[in-house]
């Protein structure tokens, strides 16, 4: 069967559907009428500067905050109405480090498995196979504290995949990592999309993490500026590449390959 195209949504509900979502912190509006959807099996990038509202959006998708304005659905399950059904289909890698440093890799991962109702025997076999895939199996009993930044991220990704979610959310997963770790993690996730068919929603402000065939949602000051296949967005703007398109859409002065700055 062919690739599922972004937004075609025939037969299956969208992996992630955000419609008409606004969010306020007191008087300050963090998100304004945000709408887009991610088709199953796609690698979708949420592109925006720091402060664009990416983390707020992720907090809403993971039901940390309520969504009084608009709806968010994960594979057709409304996050506010059926949080359990929505959350079990969602794996999430937070921007902040969330491993317990005093516990071992195994203990960290087992804790997560139990939070999804996965018993010890099943959890251990999944943990071993995930760690084997990322070449970290020999660190199973090491304290999380002893891992490097890139290794911690890999463990956090393994953790997010433990309950086999069809949708994986990553909030700036490569921030603070060296070039090699960044490339490896990006490659691992892209491989997952190809081989396992999971859907990925990847927030970043790093232009060079975007490929032409990706689905991109550009967020600026809480608004969606554009949403579609990268090459189509670029063509639509008449820009040379995605960074040019971003600059045109948001009025950002300079966009370098490594990141964007106002």
């Amino acid at each position, binding site marked *: 069967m062919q690739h599922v195209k972004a937004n075609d949504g025939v037969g299956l509900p969208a992996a992630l559907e955000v419609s008409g979502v606004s969010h306020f912190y*007191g008087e300050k509006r*963090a998100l304004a009428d945000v709408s887009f959807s991610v088709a199953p099996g796609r690698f979708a990038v949420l592109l925006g500067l720091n402060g664009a509202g990416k983390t707020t959006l992720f907090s809403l998708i993971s039901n940390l905050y309520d969504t009084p304005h608009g709806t968010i659905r994960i594979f057709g399950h409304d996050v506010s109405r059926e949080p359990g059904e929505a959350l079990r289909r969602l794996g999430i890698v937070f921007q902040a480090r969330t491993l317990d440093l005093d516990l071992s890799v195994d203990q960290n991962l087992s804790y997560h498995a139990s939070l999804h109702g996965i018993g010890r025997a099943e959890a251990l076999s999944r943990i071993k196979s995930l760690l084997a895939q990322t070449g970290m199996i020999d660190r199973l009993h090491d304290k999380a504290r002893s891992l490097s930044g890139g290794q911690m991220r890999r463990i956090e990704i393994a953790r997010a995949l433990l309950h086999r979610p069809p949708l994986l959310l990553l909030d700036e997963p490569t921030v603070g990592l060296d070039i090699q770790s960044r490339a490896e993690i990006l490659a691992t996730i892209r491989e997952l999309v190809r081989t396992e068919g999971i859907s990925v929603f990847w927030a970043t402000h790093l232009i060079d993490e975007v490929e032409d065939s990706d689905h991109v949602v550009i967020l600026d000051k809480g608004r969606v500026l554009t949403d579609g296949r990268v090459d189509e967005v670029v063509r639509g703007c008449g820009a040379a590449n995605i960074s040019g398109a971003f600059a045109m859409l948001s009025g950002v002065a300079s966009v370098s390959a490594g990141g964007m700055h106002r």
Partner: protein
Amino acid sequence: MTMQSVTDVIPANAQRGFRVGQYFVCLKGILFREGLRFLNQRERFVSSLVRPLLWLFVFAAGFRQVLGVSIIPPYKTYVMYEVYITPGLCGMILLFSGMQSSLSMVYDREMGNMRTLLVSPFPRWFLLSSKLLAGVTVSTMQVYAFLAVAWFWDVRPPWTGYLLILPALFLSGLMLCSLGLLLSSVIKQLENFAGIMNFVIFPMYFASPALYPLWRIQESSPLLHKICLANPFTYAVELIRFALYGQLDWGSLAVVVTVTMLFLGGAILAYDPSKGLLGRRPDTGGNA
């Protein structure tokens, strides 16, 4: 990739909700993690013991000449001052531990550990109650460790008392931990433990019968006596004191159960995304 593999990942007829067994797996995981964290912080265990032992060894020794405790229920004879303050010190352990767990949750929230808990698909009331249960279990063990040391200091309640205080400790611990949980959700940033000590722990501890019987307080200040009666910690201490001597103080039990339900309900509400306070502030990790 294919459509087929998508449905492989999560079958269309995937089970909804969780089986009872899976709830146990989740509860066990939360208890186990709390236990591991506790074992990894031995200083915390030692300091939780040192504090009440100082009161018992030093403070009580100094005050027993000053404070005479007359015969009041549940005691049938004159008791040593050490004996009198032991239930209050048990309460103190629960109080500190409850507040400490509230502080650790604020820390957790900032470090993102609370987030990893809250994105679990289990119902939020279940997750928070499990977290509380874990905290209470740890503080109950601390109380027994304290009582074991106190035994060598000639504080020797009847052996049945050791069994009977278990439910009293558990309930009181639940009350104080849910108070802590409520505080952690309401107070934006607990500056440090000192703030909690000055504004919550010490007032609750001193305005209670933990160190002196309430009738003595009434003699010196009727107003203070009223404050003590309004303090839920008072009832926790009395519940523990009576249980230690094989008696059930129904009045205290009623207050402790009611207050626990109020605090716990408040905490669950505060952490409920649709009603809670979390969404009102932008500081829950990351930038915007």
